[in-house]
């Protein structure tokens, strides 16, 4: 049964794969506690893991002096996950389309695509320095604006 109140968790972690794993485990636990079903939780977890990998690998470049922050919020409407890094920032519109024939056999470049595939909304914000990804999953399918 979903909690009708808002709950929050925030983690500030070093730039390591262990931190990615911790964010992934937190996403699993948080999404389950928020009441998302068995089909949706793995998709949320995968999207959050991909965002954490981006923060640690592409954003902070494993720099031990830089931190990743992951915050989780569940309210009656949706789950909101924000992942911040302290990297140089990037332009999401510059990312190549991984489905394009010339990119289909590339060994990388599918992370943001999968995040967008599994979440209802994905927003990028430049922090100067750093990037914040906001991932939103609604409890029911998003309705088009009237």
């Amino acid at each position: 049964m979903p909690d009708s109140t808002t709950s929050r968790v925030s983690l500030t972690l070093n730039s390591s794969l262990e931190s990615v794993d911790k964010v992934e485990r937190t996403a699993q636990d948080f999404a389950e506690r928020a009441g998302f079903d068995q089909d949706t939780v793995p998709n949320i977890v995968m999207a959050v893991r991909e965002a954490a990998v981006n923060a640690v690998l592409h954003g902070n470049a494993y720099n031990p002096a830089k931190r990743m922050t992951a915050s989780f919020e569940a309210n009656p409407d949706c789950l909101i996950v924000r992942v911040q890094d302290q990297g140089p920032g990037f332009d999401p519109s510059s990312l190549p389309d991984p489905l394009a024939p010339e990119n289909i056999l590339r060994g990388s470049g599918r992370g943001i695509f999968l995040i967008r595939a599994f979440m209802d909304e994905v927003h990028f914000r430049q922090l100067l320095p750093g990037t914040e990804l906001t991932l939103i999953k609604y409890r029911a399918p998003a309705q088009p604006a009237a």
Partner: protein
Amino acid sequence: MSMKVTTRQVDGITILDLSGRITLGEGSVTLRDSVHDLLGKGAKHILLNLGNITYIDSSGIGELVSAFTSVKNAGGELKLLNLTKKVHDLLQITKLYTVFDIKDDEATAVAAFAS
């Protein structure tokens, strides 16, 4: 949490039974090293059994693609066997399902390699 690889031979085909997680870091590196080792030993026909893969991320998907192209560039063939529903869905979403030759029966997969 990490991935394990067991290698066996069936009718001249090298089968890699993978279990665990193929993710950024150890899992992806283990897969890459295993395939490169096989190519170095002259193996040309490689079947990746993914039936016991519990999780794969975008890095793991990329590693499957890299393995496919490495084997193909070496003049060989790489096929996939026993996809879990999750891996199946991910390959569909990323439009890689038609890139790979995917089988759900080992004997059929082994027989499908060119001699």
